[in-house]
């Protein structure tokens, strides 16, 4: 007995989710930031940048983590007041829970006081990163 209904349901729902996923990856959103949480050199294992810091959470089962890492680490080479800190999410679970990191790569944009002002899930575009950093004073 052939039935096409389950196939149709799966393809419609997966397509809708897939488009949302594709469009939302990399967008830097300020409303996703966890308010009131202050990141310090102690919790991150490295000192913050003098103006801004990009804190990237990665995991081993994540292909775009590598692309995000090369983009951000290459971008900060030309900026003396911005740092890129890379964190293995799995070995920092307490921090991951506090900050509610759900997927990798997730990059937090943090000001000089350690306050998160925005975050991006997925690999952001160079222009998006530049615009987000521009807004951190």
């Amino acid at each position, binding site marked *: *007995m*052939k*039935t*096409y209904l*389950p*196939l149709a*349901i*799966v*393809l419609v*729902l*997966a*397509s809708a*989710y*897939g*488009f949302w*996923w*594709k469009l939302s990856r990399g967008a830097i959103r300020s409303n996703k930031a966890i308010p009131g949480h202050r990141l310090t050199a102690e919790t991150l294992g490295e000192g913050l940048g003098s103006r801004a810091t990009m804190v990237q*959470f*990665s*995991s*081993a*089962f*994540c*292909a*775009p*983590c*590598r692309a995000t*890492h*090369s983009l951000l*680490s290459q971008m900060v080479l030309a900026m003396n007041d911005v740092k890129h800190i*890379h964190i*293995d*999410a*799995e070995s920092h*679970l307490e921090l*991951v*829970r506090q900050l509610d*990191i*759900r*997927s*990798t*790569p997730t990059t937090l944009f943090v000001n000089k006081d350690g306050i998160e002002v925005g975050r991006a899930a*997925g690999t952001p575009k160079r222009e998006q990163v530049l615009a987000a950093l521009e807004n951190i004073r």
Partner: protein
Amino acid sequence: MSEVLDTPEVRKIYIDARGPRFGAAITTTVLAIALVTQNELVLVAQGIVFLIGAIRGPQFTPYGLIYKNFIKPRLSKEAPTEDVRPPKFAQAVGFVFALVGSIGAFTGVDVLFTVATGFALAAAFLNSAFNYCLGCEMYLLIVRFTSK
């Protein structure tokens, strides 16, 4: 680069990134056939492919061999490479769905077969159509729920 992403050990397991995505397209077709014909044997066969991909890597599955022998020679020589661990993780998730679906079929719980096959199909479809990264979205959540 940090040790989770790149070490000499990790670099040894780089594969052609186009291979797993091609495999996901075949997987999508196979699982669609399993779902439409409600045929548990098709799901079992796909489950074996997932198991090989989860343990040895997607490049060693029948789909990976088709890619290597028939597709790759026709593509440009410059292959984008990726770490084998993310697609291996996806294959393991696929295997769990195939296992659950097969158990459903052989114990007469048809709805379990349909739902589990549907989820495996959704994952394979997302991978092939959107280059979806299952490990990115699921792995950390699993670790957060399963460890203290």
